[in-house]
Structure formats: C-alpha cells, structure tokens
C-alpha cells in the first residue's frame, strides 16, 4: 500500500494514500472538532460535505485554510490544527453558525446532548456578534407521529440526508433551496407524513442539534400514572436493557435489566412486563406461519408464497408499504411484539384483573421512534382505544428516571411481573440483527422435526455484515435464510424477491443498522459501531443466562394458548395477533 509521510502539530505520521487530514489526525490522537463530518465505519459511509467549516486547519504553504474532513494528505504536508489563525477562523465560523440559530437552549429538547452547544462551549464562545442584523430563519415546525422537525435549528450538516438516502435509501429528506432559505426537507417542503419517511429515526440519531427530535410522550405517561382510576402497565423492548445504562454513565454493553425493572416500579407502574414475552409469542405465530408456508411449498402448492419476511419492525413495514406494495402479501402477517403485547394485555390480561380495557393504560419502552407511529395506526385500536397507548424511547425513559430523582446505578435488581413478564432467551435476541430469525429457527426446527435442538447458538446468523445468508439444516431439509439490517440492505434483498431471483425461504429485516440495539430511540452512538457491538454482546449474554432459550418452552406462553388462544394461528390468534398491510404511497399533497 502506498503511504504518505506528513507532520501534524509537530508530530510525524505515515498514513495510507487517500487518507484525509481529519482521519490522519484522529489516528494520531488529535481530534479536530467538526459539526458535520460523520463516519460510519461498518457501513463504509462517510458524511463530509465540508459544510460546517469548523474543521479548518492550516497547511504550510497554502494561502487558505483547508477543511480537514475533505482534504487528502499529501507527501510532506505540514499541518497545524490549533494556531491562532485556525482558532480565530474556527471561532468566527462558529459565530456565523450561531448568528441565526435560536438561543432557546434552556428549553431545547437537545440541551445537554447538543453538539452545537458543546462546540460553542469548547470554542469558548461568549458573545455572538451580528445576531441583531442576522436574518433569523423562520421555518414552520413539522410534527409527525414520531419525529419533530424544527428547522430553525438546522445547521445544514446534512447527516440526516446521508442516513435517509445513502444508508436507508428512503429518500424522504433532501437539501432544498439556497442561501438563507436553504434547509433539509421532504419534497415540496411538505410534512414528513406526506413523504416516504418510515420513521426509522436514524436522522434523529445523527442530528447534532435540536433540529430533529422525537415526539415526547412522557407527559401523557406521567398523567396516566397520576390518575388513580387507571391501571398502568409497561413493557420493555429487549434492546432497551442493553443501552439504558449508557445514559447513566455506564459502559456500553452494560446490562441493566433488573435495575430498569426496579426503576419502572419506582416510577409507579402497576405491573412491569416484558416485550420479550410478546417476542416469544411472535415466534409462535410467525414460526408456525413460516412452517405452514414452507410445508405447503414443499408439497408443490404454488400459492404458498416464499420467502416469508419478518414483520416485527415498524420502520421496515413502513418501507415496504411505500416502496414494495406489490409484495405486501409476502411478509408474515404476525403483528410486532409491541402490538401483540398490547392486544393480549387489553384482552387476556384486562380480563384476568377484571378491568375494562379503557382503564388499562399500556406503555411501551422502545429503542425505536417508528413504534410511536405504529401504536397510533388505526388497525391497532378497538373503539378508539389503542392496544398500546404510548410508546416512549430509551432516551425518554432515561430522562423520565432522572426527573424522578432515581439513580439507576444504585437500584436493586428487580424481577418482571407475571404473567406477561416471563420470557426466554429467544425473546431477548429480538433486539439485535439476526436475532428474530435465530429465535424462529430454535422453535421452527423443533416443531418441524420433532427432535430436540442440540445447538442453540446459531453464530452463522449473527454479526454486523449488512446482508447475510445462511442455510440451516432442519434434519435433512436445508432452510435458506437471508438477513438484512439497514433499509438500504433490505432493498437489495427485496429487489431480488421482486425479480424472482431470491432463493431464500425466510428473510429477516430490521430497519436500523445493527437492529433495534442501533434504533433511532437509543442513546446516541454518534456512528461508533463499537457501541453497537457491545450492545449486541450484552443481548447474547442475557440470552445465554436464561434457563429457557426457546420460545415454545416459555411456560406462560403455553398457558396463554391453553387458557385463551387455543393454538398458534388459531382463529382467535389471527384476530388478535395478526394484521394486514396497505399501500402507503399516496400522491403528494400540494398545499398552498
């Protein structure tokens, strides 16, 4: 490999040809500040529009300062990253960025977690000259079911555009207009609701400022908790326990399952349940559906559509409803675990504790922003009463716990309540890419072959490769499995299905890179895939620790079928636990 020798801040270095100054400096332990640059290692994607101009450095012999994120190292370069000239320029640029930025930090949802705020502090900005003559931008605020866009706070870093287009291929956001009117928006500056947005929330996860934030439902939850006439129950998604600790200063990958349960109980929830229980239930329904279709296919029934696609991820459901409506009868009809939980809670559990479903409030803690939209979908309500009333993100839960003066670090380990809190290891691994299909394999294998599965860790289904495939031997029957995480990767598999090239029997898709552990509602990981890997490892640890690791062995699932649902894919199960999909692409509304 051809290399280049250069000097940065009086330190000598040798880097591969093509390396940018920013990367070379980082390798030497020099972090050049930036507001727009973002590198997503494992996705091989870089955002470097050289737009913020904060990362300017001085290159000896050059007249102008160079943006380090977009300038390649050259032989013999002598670079200085903190001369007076650089620092002055950086501060001036920052002052320009701040001149038309709202000064409502005190009440901004991103306060304390805002890269712009941190940068202003780092650069020691103490006044903002020129703000009295700067034309303040005045975009309207757009509130969708999941995401709030407050474009006055946009600094045009274009990270959201990168996530939406290059990673997710959703194409909802683009840079539009020019000059003072320049911003990032959906087509025709419509609201997100009228765009191809899937609410995956990856734009929110990378936004350096308060321009993109989630819709906060904690006030409604608080109100429900304070209402004595309501019984409030909570379900926690698998990925939450592997990331919540980060918001309390714990290392990425710290499991906080027991502490999280205690915190929720301290917050006043009447029952603390687990979405993992519903994940086990999903496996029963989805796995049975998979085997049904597979066996019909093997018998030569051409109406049995294969591959079957998983349907647990609402961002993914939104994606295929928009871009692949012609394939909408291919995904499993099984509802997502969140919605299965809601449906069972408001029927079976409400019956058990003898209350009306209207007096039962179901709250979900999700690593996800699309779940907020999902629980508001019309088909998931009965008589205007939602199966899941409110969905709040991992980040919102952390803020909620802090508001209640609870220190997560010092809590005892609590236990989930019965009956909807009991889960197997299969339910836990739903939180990471490959986990849903691994859980399905553990159950489907035993149901199909009637034999006991000896090996429970299907490492061939794990990992962070964007598209993975594996063939699992079902006692002589090879079952071909495809896995994609990130909607851009899903699109590759979907295009093959559409053109008839796909050879898979089952495909798992999760919208977010890494799966739910990298979800749009998780603590911000700033593109650092090591954090994602640590969370995945935590999920697999939790799985290994569970005494039961196959969904169909969950005693409360068995009891639920005996007492209530009869058997998987029964008429009652279909009514409560299955759904159907719609074509979502509507003509864009052109409003005055």
């Amino acid at each position: 490999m051809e290399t280049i020798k250069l000097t940065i801040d009086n330190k000598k270095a040798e880097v591969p040809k093509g390396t940018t100054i920013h990367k070379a400096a980082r390798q030497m332990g020099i972090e050049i500040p930036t507001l727009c640059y973002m590198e997503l290692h494992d996705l091989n994607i870089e955002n470097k529009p050289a737009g913020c101009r904060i990362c300017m450095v001085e290159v000896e012999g050059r007249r102008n300062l160079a943006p380090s994120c977009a300038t390649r190292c050259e032989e013999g370069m002598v670079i200085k990253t903190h001369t007076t000239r650089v620092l002055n320029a950086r501060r001036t640029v920052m002052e320009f960025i701040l001149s038309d930025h709202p000064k409502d930090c005190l009440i901004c949802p991103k306060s304390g977690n805002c890269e712009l705020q941190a940068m202003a502090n780092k650069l020691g900005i103490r006044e903002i000259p020129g703000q009295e003559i700067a034309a303040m931008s005045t975009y309207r605020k757009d509130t969708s079911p999941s995401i709030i866009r407050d474009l006055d706070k946009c600094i045009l870093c274009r990270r959201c555009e990168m996530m939406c287009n290059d990673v997710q291929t959703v194409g909802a956001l683009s840079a539009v207009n020019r000059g003072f009117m320049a911003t990032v928006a959906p087509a025709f500056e419509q609201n997100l609701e009228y765009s191809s947005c899937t609410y995956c929330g990856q734009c929110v996860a990378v936004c350096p400022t308060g321009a993109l934030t989630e819709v906060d439902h904690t006030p409604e939850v608080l109100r429900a908790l304070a209402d004595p006439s309501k019984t409030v129950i909570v379900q926690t998604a698998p990925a939450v326990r592997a990331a919540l600790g980060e918001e309390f200063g714990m290392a990425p990958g710290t499991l906080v399952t027991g502490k999280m349960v205690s915190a929720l109980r301290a917050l006043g929830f009447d029952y603390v349940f687990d979405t993992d229980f519903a994940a086990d239930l999903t496996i029963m329904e989805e796995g049975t559906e998979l085997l049904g279709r597979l066996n019909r296919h093997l018998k030569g029934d051409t109406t049995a559509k294969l591959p079957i696609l998983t349907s647990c991820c609402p961002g993914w459901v939104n994606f295929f409803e928009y871009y692949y409506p012609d394939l909408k009868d291919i995904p499993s009809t099984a509802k997502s675990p969140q919605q299965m939980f809601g449906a069972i809670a408001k029927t079976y559990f409400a019956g058990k504790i003898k209350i009306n479903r209207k007096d039962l409030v179901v709250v979900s803690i999700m690593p996800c922003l699309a779940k907020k939209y999902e629980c508001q979908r019309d088909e998931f309500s009965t008589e205007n009463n939602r199966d899941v009333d409110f969905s709040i993100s991992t980040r919102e839960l952390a803020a909620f716990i802090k508001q209640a003066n609870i220190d997560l670090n010092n809590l005892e380990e609590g236990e989930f309540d019965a009956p909807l809190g009991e889960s197997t290891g299969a339910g836990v691994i739903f939180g990471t890419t490959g986990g849903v299909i691994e859980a399905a394999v553990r159950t489907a294998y035993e149901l199909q072959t009637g034999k006991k599965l000896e090996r429970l860790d299907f490492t061939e289904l794990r990992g962070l490769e964007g598209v993975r495939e594996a063939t699992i031997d079902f006692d002589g029957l090879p079952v071909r499995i495809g896995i994609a995480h990130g909607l851009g990767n899903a699109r590759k598999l979907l295009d093959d299905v559409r053109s008839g090239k796909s050879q898979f029997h089952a495909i798992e898709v999760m919208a977010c890179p890494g799966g739910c552990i990298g979800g749009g509602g998780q603590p911000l990981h700033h593109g650092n895939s090591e954090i994602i890997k640590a969370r995945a490892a935590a999920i697999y640890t939790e799985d290994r620790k569970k005494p039961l690791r196959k969904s169909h062995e969950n005693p409360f699932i068995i009891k639920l079928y005996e007492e209530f649902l009869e058997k998987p894919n029964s008429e009652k199960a279909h009514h409560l636990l299955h759904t159907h999909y719609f074509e979502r692409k509507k003509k864009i509304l052109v409003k005055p």
Partner: protein
Amino acid sequence: MSSIKIELRQEDVAKIKEICTSFGNDEQELINVLHKCQEHFGYLPAEVQEVVSDELSVPVAKIYGVVTFYSFFTMTPKGKHPISICMGTACYVRGAEKVLEEFKKELRLQVGQTTSDGKFSLSSLRCVGACGLAPVVMVGDKTYGRVAPDDVRNIIKEYEK
C-alpha cells in the same frame, strides 16, 4: 413553493416519459431532463417532478432540491408577458433596483411570481449584454433601455390591451 395543483393529462405523462427515455432514464441526466421538461411545460410543477422521480428512480425530494437550488428552474408558470429587470452591475448602479421596486408596486408582485390572470410575471436577471442601455428591462423578447421608474406604468400599459 408552488400553490398550483394541476392534473397531468395522459399526453403530458407520455411526454415526460419520452424525455426521460431520450436520456436513457439515467439519474445522472436529471438536470438535462428537467431542462427539457421546463422547455416543454414552461415550468416544473410538483406533478411533473413526481413522474420524473418514478422514471429516473430518484427520490422526489432530491428532484425538488435540484429544482429549488438552480434559479433557472421554476415551479410557477411564467406569465404571458414575462418581465425581466437586469440587476447586473451596470444596470444596478444606474438605478435598476428602483425600476424593479416600481414594477413590484405596479403589478403587486414579488420577484418569481405571476399575476393571477397569468398575464405578467416578474423576474430579475444578471446582464443581458446591453450595458450601454442601462438600466435594461425585457418584456418577452422586447428590450427597453434607459428605463426610469416613471416609464414603468407606460411599459405595462403597452401589454394590458
């Protein structure tokens, strides 16, 4: 943003598809495709952009981004008599801004807008190469030189019949 909602006729859609095909439905040719579409329709309403989006497999948000970035592209139809005021250096120093203000006042229009009867539209441009006649105003293909704010009323009158 455009406030005009139009219904594309079948032949309009066919025309857009024909333009896209002539560029091999290549997304790299987006700007050329938009040029041709604007040449044909006179402007680029949202509905046209949607068809181009489907044909070139480019998200419609991206297309809108391009349309709003380049000042040549417009989402509002030009008037029957498009009025352009030169704001190039020579015209500007000789008072083009005052002439533009007068047009705005007389027609009750902002730059980039069209009168509700579709008769006039107002735009500014940079240098028509007639600096000796500064300030210069163009109405359609006709050029007016050394225009003073007082002349504006009469210029408009010529076209009001």
